[in-house]
Structure formats: structure tokens, C-alpha cells
């Protein structure tokens, strides 16, 4: 298989993962206007929760039906969203709506710092390994190379997540209400929309997507403290490239970052770590608000 195809496959795998971790971030920003650094913590907590759940699943005789571990992972992500979503949104973030965007970044930065240590308190500092779900789907042979089937499952998961988010926003009544709130929350409120509930729902959805990203990643890596630190910055890059609040933007951003990183890994390994930010800087130079950003009138 030639280099271009390898880069494409690697890039798609990475892009799928990127999309899952960043789509929640852009959704939360779109609705709540908060760039949530704690998204990285939710990702890490999702990974820990999934590691624990899958571990528990196999400890309680899950070997008879190992595919159930995938359900365990999704349940873990749901639990994280159900517990932390309302806690963070109702308990903290709602007091900062309408405040300065950058100030809100700092609020979520504080949450991020707090959650980093909370994770250490709950799960300790030793790594967790749950490799079972990763090996379950076997290998896929592509030319001379073998890919792990699970990696392709992540791409599939990304497509499902993307479609689900897009359909629920554009094809359901609730989704249209959410779009109305994104467009003008005050006006929606006067029209009888329960904006508070939409905010909570959007934040929980975002939290679920972050935790799902973590849960899907858990089998591929050793789950250790500090997991969220790198993820959040990469997700920021993706979301900023695509334009804050734009779901298709997140998909395009994820593809751009995924493929350019794969290209760099194969052709210029020294650049692997900064290529992401380099792409982001280039995009922002030409499109200061990202590729798919809404144009906004300046207020005098």
C-alpha cells in the first residue's frame, strides 16, 4: 500500500477520534457560549469510568459475552454525563452566563484543575488497563499492513455520533428549539422556550460526548492522570479551525488535523507535536473566526 493511502487511513482513524472528542465542545460553545476547558476532564473521567466499568463487567463474568463490554463503556459515559453534567451546569456555570467569554474560559479552567485532583482522589495515580474491547474486533488486513479492527469501529462511531447530532439538531422539534436558542436565547425565552432546560440538556449532551470520547479511548491506552491535559488543547484546535459552534466545522477541522498529523508522522516525524497548532494558526490567519463561523455584527 502506498504512502498516500497509509496516511489517509491513519488520518481518518485519528480524525474519527478527534471528531468525537471535539463535537461536544463545539456544541456546548454553540449553545452556552462557554469554551469549556473542563471538557478535557470530562474526557478523562469518561476514560476512567469506562475502565472501571469494563473491569467490573469482566470481573462479574462478562467473559461469556465479551461484546457487552461496549455497552459497559457507553453506560459509563452516560453515567458521567448524568452525574457531572447537572452538577457543573446547574451548580456553577449558570452563574456565569452572559459574562465575558475569556472569563468563562478561566472558570472552566478552575473546574479543570479541581477535577484533575478529584480524579486522582477517586481512581488513584496508578494506570488502568482494559485491553479486552480493543482486541475483540480482530485485525483488518489492508495490503501489507494490519490495522486493528477497533480503530475502524472508532471511525464508525464518529460517523454515527456526527449523524446523530446533526439529525437531532436539524430534524427534530427539540433540535430546532436548540437552534433557536443558539440564534437568540432572549427571543426564544419570550416565545416560551425553557432556555434553562436547553442549556442543561446541551451541556449534558456535550459532557456525554466528551465522556464517550474518553470511554472509547480507554481500551487503546493506559488510563493515567493528566489524560485530559493534551486532549483539550487538541480539541480546541479542531473546534477553532472549524469555527466555534459549528458541527460540520468540527468534522472538517477533525479531518484536516487528523490527516495533516498522519502525514507529518509518516513524512516529518519531528513536526508531529506542533503540526496541529500550525494548521490552526494558518487557518486563523486567513479565516480569523474559523472556517464555518457565523458572521456577527459588531456592536457599537
Amino acid at each position, binding site marked *: 500500500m502506498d504512502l498516500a493511502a497509509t496516511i489517509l487511513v491513519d488520518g481518518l482513524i485519528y480524525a474519527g477520534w478527534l471528531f468525537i472528542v471535539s463535537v461536544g465542545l463545539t456544541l456546548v460553545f454553540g449553545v452556552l457560549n462557554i*469554551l469549556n476547558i473542563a471538557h478535557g476532564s470530562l474526557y478523562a473521567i469518561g476514560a476512567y469510568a469506562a475502565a472501571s466499568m469494563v473491569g467490573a463487567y469482566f470481573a462479574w463474568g462478562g467473559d461469556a459475552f465479551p461484546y457487552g463490554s461496549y455497552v459497559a463503556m457507553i453506560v459509563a459515559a452516560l453515567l458521567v454525563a448524568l452525574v457531572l453534567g447537572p452538577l457543573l451546569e446547574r451548580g*456553577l456555570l449558570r*452563574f456565569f452566563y452572559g459574562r*465575558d*467569554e*475569556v*472569563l468563562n*474560559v*478561566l*472558570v472552566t*479552567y*478552575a*473546574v*479543570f*484543575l*479541581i477535577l*484533575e*485532583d*478529584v480524579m*486522582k*482522589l477517586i481512581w488513584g*495515580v496508578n494506570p488502568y488497563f482494559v485491553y479486552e474491547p480493543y482486541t475483540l474486533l480482530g485485525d483488518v488486513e489492508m495490503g501489507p499492513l494490519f490495522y486493528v479492527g477497533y480503530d475502524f469501529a472508532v471511525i464508525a462511531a464518529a460517523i454515527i455520533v456526527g449523524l446523530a447530532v446533526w439529525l437531532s439538531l436539524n430534524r427534530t422539534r427539540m433540535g430546532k428549539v436548540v437552534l433557536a436558542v443558539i440564534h437568540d436565547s432572549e427571543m426564544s425565552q419570550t416565545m416560551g422556550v425553557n432556555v434553562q432546560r436547553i442549556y442543561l440538556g446541551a451541556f449534558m449532551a456535550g459532557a456525554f460526548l466528551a465522556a464517550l470520547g474518553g470511554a472509547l479511548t480507554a481500551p487503546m491506552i493506559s488510563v493515567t492522570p493528566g489524560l485530559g*491535559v493534551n486532549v483539550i*488543547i487538541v480539541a*480546541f*484546535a479542531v473546534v*477553532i479551525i472549524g469555527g*466555534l459552534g459549528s458541527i460540520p466545522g468540527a468534522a472538517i477541522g477533525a479531518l484536516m488535523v487528523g490527516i495533516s498529523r498522519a502525514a507529518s508522522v509518516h513524512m516529518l*516525524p*519531528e*513536526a*508531529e*507535536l*506542533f*503540526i*496541529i*497548532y*500550525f494548521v*490552526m*494558526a494558518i487557518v*486563523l*490567519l486567513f479565516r*480569523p*473566526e474559523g472556517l464555518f463561523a457565523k458572521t456577527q455584527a*459588531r456592536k*457599537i
Partner: protein
Amino acid sequence: MRTNLMLSAVGAFVLLAAGAVLLPDWAMFLCAMALAKGLVSLGIVGMMRGGLVSFGQGLYYCLGAYTATLVAGQLGVSDIFLLTLLSAGVCLVVGALFGPLLAGYRGIFFAMLSLALSMVLYGTLAKLTVLGGTDGLNIGAPTFFGWDPEGRALQTALYLYVAVLVVVAGTLMRIYFDSEQGLITLATRDNELRVEYLGASVRTVMSYNYVFGAVLGGIGGTIAALALGHVDPEFAFWTTSGEFVFVAILAGYLSVPAVFVAAIILEMVRSFSNLYFPNTWQLALGIFLLIVIVVLPNGLGSLVRRRKGDAT
């Protein structure tokens, strides 16, 4: 005004210099580091007055630190004045390159773009084995015009040097803040478009603020490198930049001395919680930050009563 400023500068220096006599070794090191980081945060405060927060000051902190380390290691220069000057020069050039570019961005985009730049440096340094990769590099102890102190004398000399830098930089920034450009920055915070309509160039002003921030970041990085004796790519990592923003928020944009007080508070909180609750110091820090944002939205500086005639 000017006499007052000079008096406060002298007062601040006397206060800091007293520390050189009174503080035990560990506290002097801690204060020297805090003051060095305070210099970086002072640069952020300069931008914050115009409503911009840079999440990437680690770029200049790291650039300054590596410049000093490389010059010391490759060229054998150990004179602290020369090292500071060179690092500041390099940061001035890089800042002048990026400044006009970044000055067109606002709010979250400015924050994220500056962050991206610092992460580019982080990524480059982490991968460059010539420069030590993620392990970083060591830098020898500095000399002061040929004087080569050791032990407590070295610590004291370094501390006093930072103290002088802090007082000089603080005074200069105060003068700049109260100058025409500085006041335009403050006006931009309220309403950028109006400032433009009145004929001032917001972009130019923001570029200046950015360049000053870059130079201060470089100086802070140099001192930190010399105090630690070691530099690594973490200097440019976003969490390092986050701490600088933390200090700037804690201090607020109203007062210059508050920046250094805030830096010392942060360093104290960190050291003590590291000592007593090693696993939860970030938790303490996060709660502390939330409290500051809620209780003191304009930072510590707002506690000091503003004197008449000062910019509000």
C-alpha cells in the same frame, strides 16, 4: 504624580531588598521565582487592560529561558545582565513579528491563537533532540559583571537582581499605563469601535502591549532558568501559561504591585499545598481561582483605594 511614583518605586525596592536580609534560603528562592513569573504576568496585565488575555505567554517565558540557556551553554556567556538583555532582545524581535499579526484578534481567538503559538514552540522543543527534547537543558550559575558568587551569596544576588528588575519594569509599565497609549488601551476595553472612531489605532496599541508582554515574558523566563538551573519544554506548555493568566486574574488590571503580590501568593499556596496535601494542590488552586473570580472580579488591585488622578 511622578514624585509619588518614584517614591513608591524606592519604597517597593526597600521592601523587597529587606527580604534579601530577612528571608531564609527557601523563601528567597520561592520569592525570586514568584517575582520572575510576576514579570510575565505583568505583560498579560498590560494586554488585559485592553480586554485581551493571552493564554500563550509561556511562548516568551520559554523562548527567554532557552535563549539564555543556549547562549550560556554554546557561547560561554554567564553574565546575567548580558543574558537578560539577549533574551529580551530575542523576545522583542519575535514579539514584534507576531504582535501586529495577533493584534487584529479579539477575545477567545486572541487567547487561542497565542496559545497555539506557544504550543508550536512546545512541540518543536519536545521533538528536537539537539536541544534536549523533553528532558531540557541545564544552565550554569550566572555571574554578575565578573563576580562569581556561590551559595547564599548567589541566591541573594539573584534575588536582588530580580527585585531591581521588578521595580524598574513595574515603574516603566506604570508610566506606560498612564501614557496616552496606555489610556487608549483602557478605553479599548470599554469600547473598541468608539476608540477607532476617535482616530486612535487600536491595532497599534495592542501590538505595543503584545511586544511589551513578550519582552517581560523573556526576562521572566531568563530569571526562572537561572534560578532553577534547568529549562525544559514545559516552560511553553499551556498549563504554565495558565498559571500566568491565573496570577494576572488574581491581580486584576488596576494595580502593578498587585501582580507581584498575586504571584507570591500563588507560589506560597502552591508550595504549602504541595507540602501538606501533595495530591490536591490543583484542587485548592482551582477553588481559590473560582473564589477570586466570584468575590474579586477586578482582582486584588481593586482592594487598594485608587488615588485621585490615577486611571481607573
